[in-house]
């Protein structure tokens, strides 16, 4: 039996470079503990209670982890509280908060680790510890820049806090600058953790576009927590974090609506099968295979989603054919019919007024590769993938016994009909599939 794709879960593949980041995080913790130890006594006397509250709220905030539509896993609430602690300067009832950056590092390490353990226990799934390490390093950067490095003519930003009490906006801008540096550090580390073979620069840009606005919101919230400590005391943590909790809620809702929509597409893609145009299971198999081929060709996450939808719907245009194709296999159809199926299907999808990128991929799914070569036609990689995967499934009908025969047949069209690069990737993928027990 073939493996069914679960629509909407184009999950991140196994991580490859997390060890270095994890090591960096551990190194930061060790240095933090060693340097913090001599001062522990005085700090705990002075602001021990506040640090404990930060630690507990961070651990609780870790439970509010969320996955962005683009696939990034973030922990906005815990991160914002940690940044709030790094920037904490003055607190109602305590006066100035003079704990050092080492204290911030140790407390946030404890908070984030406890939070991750809780999350693991709660979801019963292991959490990517390298991502937690990346978050911790980012907090350490913010704390050190704010509390330890003398960036203002020999004095640290923290020491400037009381002086600038009448022009608080300057402090706010300084915090923003430091917070953005810390966010950039986290972005680079997190990208290093989650990128597979794909180009690092490309992944960095994508990650920045996808997670940038949320990072900005996290930094802002951290600043709001820190500045709110003066009038509100520790209540500031709980209250200032609320907009971020709302944000997480809306992101979850957005994701669930999107998931339902994609499930709908997956269910409705079977309409052509039920109506007798295509063989059972065809669109699901093509979609699953296309996504795997797309992933091995390092297609970005966003494009994989479009590819999956387009592959699910690729045969919907057959409903406009005057006579069903025998067996529904478009690989046997005349090129003109293939093109008209493609463009009819794209028209249907275009009527949704929002899936134009899916329609564009469907439109070009029948274009022969020689046109790309000879005329330099712009054919999206996703379309070329669907063309190859569709042909492969038409020839095998989901039966791996016909695999070598089908691949042989595809090689006959290599370069003329099919993109050699895609075909090579397909061969790699299907040989991987048959190699594992089903």
């Amino acid at each position, binding site marked *: 039996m073939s493996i069914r794709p679960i629509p909407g879960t184009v999950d991140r593949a196994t991580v490859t470079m997390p060890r270095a980041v994890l090591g960096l995080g551990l190194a930061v913790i060790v240095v933090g503990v060693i340097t913090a130890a001599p001062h522990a006594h005085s700090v705990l006397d002075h602001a021990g209670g506040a640090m404990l509250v930060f630690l507990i709220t961070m651990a609780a905030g870790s439970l509010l982890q969320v996955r962005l539509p683009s696939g990034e896993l973030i922990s906005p609430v815990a991160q914002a509280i940690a940044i709030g602690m790094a920037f904490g300067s003055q607190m109602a009832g305590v006066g100035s908060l003079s704990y050092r950056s080492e204290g911030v590092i140790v407390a946030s390490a404890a908070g984030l680790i406890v939070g991750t353990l809780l999350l693991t226990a709660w979801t019963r799934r292991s959490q990517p510890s390298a991502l937690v390490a990346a978050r911790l390093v980012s907090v350490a950067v913010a704390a050190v820049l704010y509390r330890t490095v003398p960036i203002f003519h020999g004095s640290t930003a923290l020491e400037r806090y009381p002086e600038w009490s009448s022009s608080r906006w300057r402090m706010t801008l300084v915090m923003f600058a430091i917070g953005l540096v810390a966010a950039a550090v986290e972005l680079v580390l997190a990208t290093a953790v989650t990128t597979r073979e794909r180009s690092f620069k490309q992944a960095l840009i994508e990650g920045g576009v996808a997670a940038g606005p949320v990072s*900005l919101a996290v930094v802002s919230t951290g600043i709001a927590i820190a500045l709110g400590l003066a009038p509100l005391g520790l209540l500031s943590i709980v209250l200032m974090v609320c907009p971020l909790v709302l944000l997480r809620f*809306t992101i979850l809702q957005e994701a669930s609506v999107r998931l339902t929509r994609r499930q709908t597409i997956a269910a409705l893609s079977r309409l052509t099968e039920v109506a*007798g145009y295509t063989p059972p299971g065809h669109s699901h198999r093509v979609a699953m295979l296309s996504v795997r081929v797309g992933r091995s060709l390092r297609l970005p996450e966003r494009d994989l989603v479009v590819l999956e939808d387009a592959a699910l719907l690729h045969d*919907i245009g057959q409903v406009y054919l005057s006579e069903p194709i025998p067996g529904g296999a478009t690989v046997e159809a005349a090129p003109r019919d293939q093109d008209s199926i493609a463009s009819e299907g794209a028209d249907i999808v275009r009527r*949704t007024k*929002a899936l134009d990128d899916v329609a564009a991929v469907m439109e070009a799914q029948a274009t022969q590769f020689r046109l790309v070569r000879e005329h330099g036609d712009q054919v999206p990689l996703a379309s070329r993938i669907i063309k190859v995967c569709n042909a492969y499934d038409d020839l095998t009908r989901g039966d791996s016994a016909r695999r070598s025969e089908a691949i042989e047949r595809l090689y006959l069209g290599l370069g003329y009909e099919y993109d050699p690069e895609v075909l090579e990737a397909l061969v790699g993928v299907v040989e991987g599939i048959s190699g594992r027990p089903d």
Partner: protein
Amino acid sequence: MPDELQRRHTSWGDRFGHPTRFFDGAWAYVVTLAVALGALLAALLLQDPRLPSWQIVGPLAVLAVLGEWNRLVVRHGSTNVSLTSVMLAASVALAGPLGAAIVGAAAHGLVPVRRAPVARAFNTVMTGLLGLAGGLVYVGCGGRVLAHHQLDELGLFLHCLLPLVVSTVAIFLLNVLCVGGMLSITTGASLGQSLRSMISLVWLSYLWYGLVGFLFAVLWGPARLGVVSVLVMVAPLLLAQSSLAQRNAEREVHQRTIESLIAAVEARDPIMHGHSARVAAAAGVIGDELRLSPRRAEALQFAALLHDIGLVGPRPRSAAGQHHLSTAERQRIRQHPDRGVEMLREIDFLAESVAAIRHHHERWDGHGFPSGLAGDEIPLLARIIAVADAYCALITPRLDRDTMSQQATLTAIRARAGGQFDPACVDALVAGQQRVQRVTQDLLGTADAPIVAGLDHDLPEISDQMAFGSAARA
């Protein structure tokens, strides 16, 4: 319809035609509200003639105008995270009743967007009134205006946060009342229904406005950030706003995806052509008449669009003009509700839609299929679809008999109230007959070839054949 209300909840007149006569019901209403606002303002000023400081009110008003501009222009009114409401709450705490009235009125009065004069006047007066009333409630509940008082942590909690939450609830109720009144004057919508649906849609957001307005005020005043507090607060709010807008857009895409895929597949079958879209439109009107909640109305739309999905597929050939079911055809019809449910199984769908699809061929008298449910045992949405289905089957022009008039169709359906159909749903169809006629005729007009021959399983006589066998027809 629910979407319309959702978009209109904080203001009125953003996206549809307005009365143009100089003095009509709408203007009279606006003038009444303005008189109320003026009287309250005068009373307040007589008691305490101090004006709020412009250094606070000025920037707050500018921000409120920007928030309103963002809502109308950038988001096209498609969001329910209203920055203006947040600014209004913040100005209640920072500047008191008078300041909040100025900020509120400025937001709608000065927003640089072309609007009908009556809409602008109404919204300006209303938000001014909201700010003033919110401020009075705030002070009445022990709230301290932060511009004049220094508060410690506990004081901020007791004398700012709590009164502000009460005040935003009051603002919300007054808002809903004002907009509901305007809707009932201009569109004749029942005040009670508008109130109920607006309250169920947005009450939660107002607690948020109170809380976020408080955070704004604290950063602005006690934390001494002033205008810079906007920098600190704006990112999470804008992001939540855009994420919600994204969600709404995604919902519409979902519905349109279903519509266009269904339409494409139906196009092959002359009897089914455009059928689902018409049933969805007719069911929508019946649902409105029955005062369905927005959530159930949405579930009804999905169910109506997808109710015959189990029928897609090769149809046994049947000659035009044939009136009796072959055994194969009978079998296919009997199975299609369950087949449809089976196809939709993998979608995390509104559970109510699935139940409606499964039971849309049940009969009120218990002789339907697949489960033979009777009366109230049949899910309401399924009963609605049954009526809409039969209506659409009857009014579709057919080759083998004269087109039935609207009146004849309604008479035929009314004759079956209590037999095949739920009498309440039939009444709702009759009550909304003009709208039903309009929406279905619009869709029939756009379909390419609606003239149909062959057997339509949704015709009432087929339901009788399925229920009582063909002998019953004679």
